[in-house]
């Protein structure tokens, strides 16, 4: 199953979204959170993201959801911290974080491959709420 990593400037946000997503996918998704920096301050930490990617990987790749701006920079830097052969197995999803994470986790729980999980996350861009 494709693993999911949630990257946020806020540790609470990442952990809260992890709870929500795990519930929605009925415990069938493998989700890791990487939020905040060392002393609990707001921000993103590429080293922590790389570790979350390692933990989330079950052998079929990892989809990464990010919140704002520099979360993307940190996630890209995390790819530099992993061995080069990991790069094609990690998909940074160009998606809104909450809906994208839900879509990715549900898709992953169906056993879909990484490309389909990323696509599902990115479809969330079109989702209208009201």
């Amino acid at each position, binding site marked *: 199953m494709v693993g999911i990593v949630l990257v946020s*400037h806020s540790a609470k946000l990442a952990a809260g979204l992890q709870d929500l997503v795990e519930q929605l996918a009925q415990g069938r998704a493998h989700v890791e959170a990487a939020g905040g*920096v*060392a*002393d609990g*301050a*707001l*921000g*993103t*930490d*590429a*080293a*922590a993201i790389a570790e979350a990617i390692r933990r989330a990987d079950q052998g079929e790749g990892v989809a990464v959801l990010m919140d704002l*701006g*520099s979360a993307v*920079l*940190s996630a*890209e*830097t995390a790819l*530099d911290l992993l061995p080069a052969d990991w790069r094609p197995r990690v998909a940074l999803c160009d998606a809104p974080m909450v809906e994208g994470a839900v879509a990715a986790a549900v898709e992953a729980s169906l056993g879909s491959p990484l490309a389909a999980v990323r696509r599902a996350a990115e479809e969330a861009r079109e989702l209208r709420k009201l």
Partner: protein
Amino acid sequence: MSTSAQTARWLRLAAAAMAEHRDELTALDAAIGDADHGVNMHRGFQAVVARLDETQDAGSIARGAAMALISTVGGAAGPLYGTFFMRFAASVGAKHEFTAAELAAAFRAGLDGLAQRGKAQAGEKTILDALAPACAALEADLANGEPLSDALLGAAEAARQGVLATIPLVATKGRASYLGERSRGHQDPGATSAYLIVKAAADAFAGE
């Protein structure tokens, strides 16, 4: 020859500069950003100094700085400067002594890595607007046969000019770009911290 000890000194001087200029950087960032650049850079460089091991080679020292910045700065400057020092480290390698040319090459590698990571170009009102002229000046002065200490002074001066040149620019990258025209007339905080880092290098690597 430059040394790994000077590399460590560079980072200590940069940390001192971030402490000294923390409020100034914060004020600059309050005008066109999240008002956290000063605090972030101070925190990041405190972490750099905390894990600094003078006995290591230059590459290891620089990579240690990269990892500290990546994990503690928090904002965009973390992965950006982190990438700078990671590429610097890879370029200079596991050496305790290195030539001026090797130092310049490491700066260039760091600059290119940072530019690539941030997808920025000159004139977008960013770190690059100080760092790129500094690197160009360093390379040009060394090519002209100047000694390293003079070339680094030239680099610091070019960085300083680059910082001032950001004032009339409209930000088209990063957090400040959300302000559009309102970013005009303000000195860029990222370029300012970049100047401080270059100046610290000029002080540290002076006197080969």
